[in-house]
């Protein structure tokens, strides 16, 4: 169901404290980004070079406490002049080796020992471990003595790896001067890589192309370099060749970071402005914000104000992440660090907000701040109604840490008491669900996600419809509007046909096609978001044998010829299964949905008719035949444990079902709409 992640449905997931961030996948909304020409890139680079010269010198090297030269944590952290700071991110497609490369940088700089790496950083939370993704840290300050004999502070700022969190990605990139563009030397550039590169260029970052996995047999650095030049317009002639896994080329990379990435501007004398690029809730200290000091200096006893929320706080503690928290006495322009100030919830210190001093307030906040806007809604209901209160408490706690999560009580006759929740996207939704289940022990029934529709009713009023069941009756509505997005796909040329077919099946409107290289093509479509959040990405993968990648961004709302499709189980309308579909595909979707429901609803001791209807018109009807036989023939001494397990499994499945009338309906049924393939196969 995950639309922008194939194999692992929840890659790019919750971090140490559960907020979504950094993972090997690396995608972000690219928006309608202007293509950056090679010329402009070059001019950018010249500008950086000049800036670098200007910054040389940085802070005076006098030994002020907290100033350059001050050591912390037994010398593990050394404050350096501004011109010896490098702030950078790693941009990489999933599986192109971002995490492994980050590990290598930490190891080679001695920031983390091999033993610690194993014990601490690979051993993160359950969700990550199970999904086979490793999220190590979000920021790491590394002490590196370069060939020029100077000690540098390298700040690796990690970023969320998923389209749902593109805003957070953009803020993290805004905290950097440079980025490592890691591309698999065999696979080449992917759509997500591209999107993030545009984002990085938009933030004026210097980019070092890094070809990873050069030791693998399929590696073809020449071809990939050409691709980087052709597709992105970056000069790849000085790309670094590394193998993060084998530890090849890491020293050269560290030198390149020092030599090729610009130092931050020395604006220490300005009024404080620091950009929050990440924040999470800590049970003991309140919200811990990670930030980049852009202007001025911040100290532990400072009184601060957040310029967008307007809230004021007294700082309890500031420090750096090395990668463990190390308290410091000062953080000045160019540095990144964290602060704790007894902030009660993440919504009070949001990503993108600007920290300034109460006394000497800056005139203007840093640009780019945005309020989160839920894109996808679904109903979350406890399977056991006794857990409703516990769920309310849990959602409240999650919201402390997740400013983008919205929820309000929902009460349906079919599902009982629960909540209608809004999310940034499907991954965000999955993370919240998993955390509710694992960390708070709440068994959930989740209804199919829906995009936010707008319904124009008589009198020109527009109603927001985030729950298909609440769509006004046909007589009352004048038009239904749905969100559209711009979709960019990179596809091997042999698969262009099937991909175009997929896009047009999903009501896609062709925009353009362009050859990136001889055998790779970029396809741009505009299509309804609702068509994307189902199985679009799965379909794209399967039609291109996994070789395509995609990226999309929300565009606008458009009027569509849409209808409400309802499902009846055993003659009763099941509200949570209602869905809004295009009129032309209603029949097909109804058929497929009924067939799917027939598959996922277990047979019961009576016959169960399942029907799809538009208004009073039944468009599809099937029935689940009655259960005839469900018995364990043998059960002797050796079988008892095994047979009991089977029965327990059956019972566990039933526990997760909701009873609709007389019929027990499993969780899968509520997600059936996502599994229904529209068009094509």
């Amino acid at each position, binding site marked *: 169901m995950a639309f922008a992640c194939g194999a692992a449905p929840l890659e790019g997931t919750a971090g140490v404290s559960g907020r979504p961030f950094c993972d090997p996948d690396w995608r972000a909304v690219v928006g309608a980004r202007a293509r950056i020409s090679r010329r402009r890139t070059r001019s950018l680079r010249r500008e950086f070079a000049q800036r670098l010269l200007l910054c040389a010198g940085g802070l005076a090297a006098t030994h002020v406490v907290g100033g350059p030269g001050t050591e912390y944590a037994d010398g593990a952290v050394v404050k350096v002049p501004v011109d010896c700071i490098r702030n950078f991110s790693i941009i990489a497609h999933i599986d192109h080796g971002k995490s492994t490369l980050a590990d290598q940088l930490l190891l080679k700089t001695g920031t983390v020992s091999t033993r610690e790496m194993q014990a601490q950083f690979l051993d993160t939370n359950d969700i990550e471990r199970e999904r086979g993704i490793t999220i190590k840290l979000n920021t790491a300050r590394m002490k590196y003595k370069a060939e020029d004999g100077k000690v540098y502070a390298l700040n690796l700022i990690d970023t969320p790896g998923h389209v749902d969190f593109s805003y957070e990605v953009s803020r993290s990139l805004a905290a950097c001067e440079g980025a490592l563009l890691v591309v698999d030397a065999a696979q080449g550039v992917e759509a997500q890589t591209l999107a993030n590169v545009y984002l990085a260029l938009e933030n004026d970052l210097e980019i070092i192309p890094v070809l990873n996995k050069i030791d693998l047999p399929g590696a073809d650095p020449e071809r990939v370099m050409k691709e980087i030049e052709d597709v992105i317009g970056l000069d790849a002639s000085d790309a670094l060749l590394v193998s993060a896994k084998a530890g090849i080329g890491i020293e050269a990379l560290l030198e390149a970071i020092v030599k090729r990435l610009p130092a931050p501007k020395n604006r220490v004398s300005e009024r404080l402005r620091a950009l929050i690029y990440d924040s999470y809730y800590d049970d003991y200290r309140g919200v811990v914000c990670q930030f980049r000091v852009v202007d001025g200096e911040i100290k532990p006893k400072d009184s601060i104000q957040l310029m967008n929320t307007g809230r004021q706080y007294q700082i309890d503690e500031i420090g750096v992440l090395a990668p463990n928290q190390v308290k410091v006495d000062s953080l000045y322009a160019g540095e990144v660090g964290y602060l704790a100030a007894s902030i009660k919830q993440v919504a009070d210190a949001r990503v993108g907000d600007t920290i300034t001093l109460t006394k000497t307030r800056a005139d203007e906040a840093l640009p780019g701040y945005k309020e989160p806007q839920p894109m996808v809604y679904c109903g979350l209901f406890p399977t056991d109604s006794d857990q409703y209160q516990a769920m309310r408490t849990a959602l409240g706690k999650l919201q402390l840490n997740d400013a983008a999560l919205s929820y309000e009580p929902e009460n349906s006759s079919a599902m009982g008491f629960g909540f209608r929740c809004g999310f940034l996207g499907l991954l965000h939704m999955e993370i919240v669900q998993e955390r509710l289940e694992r960390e708070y022990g709440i068994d959930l029934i989740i209804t199919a996600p829906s995009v936010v529709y707008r319904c124009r009713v008589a009198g020109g009023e527009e109603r927001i419809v985030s729950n298909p069941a609440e769509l006004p009756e046909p007589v009352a509505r004048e038009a239904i509007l749905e969100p559209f997005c711009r979709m960019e796909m990179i596809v091997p040329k042999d698969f262009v046909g099937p991909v175009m077919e997929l896009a047009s099946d999903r009501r896609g409107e062709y925009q353009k096609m362009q050859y990136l290289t001889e055998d790779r093509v970029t396809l741009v479509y505009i299509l309804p978001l609702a068509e994307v959040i189902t199985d679009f990405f799965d379909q794209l993968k399967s039609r291109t044998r996994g070789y395509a990648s995609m990226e999309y961004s929300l565009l606008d709302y458009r009027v569509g010829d849409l209808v409400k499709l309802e499902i009846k189980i055993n003659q009763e309308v099941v509200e949570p299964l209602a869905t809004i579909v295009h009129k032309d595909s209603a029949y097909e979707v109804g058929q497929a949905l009924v067939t799917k429901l027939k598959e996922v609803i277990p047979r*019961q*001791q009576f016959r169960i008719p399942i029907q799809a209807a538009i208004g009073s018109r039944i468009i599809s009807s099937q029935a689940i035949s009655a*259960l*005839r*036989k*469900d*018995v*364990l*023939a*043998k*059960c*002797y*001494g*050796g079988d*008892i*444990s095994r*047979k*009991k397990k*089977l*029965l*327990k499994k*059956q*019972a566990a499945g*039933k*526990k997760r079902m909701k009873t609709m009338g007389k019929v027990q309906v499993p969780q899968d049924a509520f997600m059936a709409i996502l599994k229904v393939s529209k068009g094509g196969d």
Partner: protein
Amino acid sequence: MAAPPRLGCAPLALAPRADSALRALRASSRGQAASLTSSGPIGDHVGTVPGAERSQAKSADEPRLGAASRDAPASAYVHLPFCKRRCFYCDFPVRAVGDDAGTPAVQDAMSKYVDLVCAEIDANVRLGSRPLQTVFFGGGTPSLTAPGLLERILASLRRKLGIAHGAEISMEADPGTFDAVKLRAYLDLGVSRFSVGVQAFQEELLRGGGRSHSLADVRRAIEDMHAVAPPSWSLDLISGLPFSTPAAWEESLRMAVEAQPHHVSVYDLQVEEGTPFGHWYSPGQSPLPSDATSSAMYVMASETLRSSGYEHYEVSNYAKPGHQCRHNLTYWTRRQCYAFGLGAASYLMGRRFRRPAKMAAYRKWVHSLQGEAVPMGGQPKESLRDQMEEELMLRLRLREGLDLMQFENEFGAAAREAVVGVLAHFVDRGLVEVDAPCHKSLLSGGVRQAGERVRLTDPSGWLVSNDIISDLFVALPD
């Protein structure tokens, strides 16, 4: 030609009473626990349940079933894994030795295995002082074992655990692996019951199941049974084999009845993962019979055998009066049981423990046994919840059903209430029967009576027993 299978429920003798019984049950589960204190633990010598005669031979020291799990173990299972070949549906720990089990190499392997089993028995500790009431040699094909080898195992058991006079000693025997002489030798060793794996009366079905015997072997086996006339013997059938038809099934049932065994087991084929059948077939899909057909076959078996004088005393087992398998009843009444041999599972001191199922691992394990101990593989004792679930899952396999008073005494009023609450739904649908010892108590309300029982109906309730039992699991209090 065979008559078409008859579907639907057997007549429910208790149906008219179901309603009032249900009311009484609900009332009693709301009733005060006070009545409990006056009525101590109740055994399950019932006699009040229609059709549930407990008529098997009882020796003087047979345990009271009600206090089963707390009584000392008096049953032992011994696994003899050797087979001529592995049947296509079999997922038991089995060693295939080829068609000739008489070769020195095979005899040597069997002898070494018996040594291991004897060593295991010797290393076991005897719990309590009661001698074994039942012994069961299962397999594999125990009838491949030379009587001399079996004798050694029985001698070990006798020495270590004692075997009561009149104990039931059962062994599985497959057609084609024994003759009358061999059977008599087993009888002389004390074996009192044979369970003959006939499986089908159609040559093509036998072949299709990968059985090592022919229809002629089956005929000879039955003749031999009649010739030696053991105290008890069972004829085992498998329903739902690939390519089987209702007509073939009716024929098998008729031939089974004509063979006049004391006991018939009818197992619906279970397609297990990792077996050839698991690779070839999917349940309910051709050439396996559809669910509708195989449930009809179940109904046919129940009707045919019951009308021929067999009591359907367990989901898959039928017996003439006095011939229920006492050993298997220990499992279904959750009594303790020793177990020896490859992959054998014991239930001792509240722990279910399965021995290694691979020969090398089993050998290593036996050699690691230090002196006398109760092997339980480091397992914790079963939780009350586990015991409760097993009690339901096992007791509801029996015609005798679940004694509610006894269940409440062991697991509490809330558990009883949950069970009654779920089962009540199934009474109207004819899947569950309720009865109480005297009609009057049904109307008295509020007072729990000894002997109140619930059971799944035969055949309708049993056919969907997993569905009902898993509902019970869901409803049980934590």
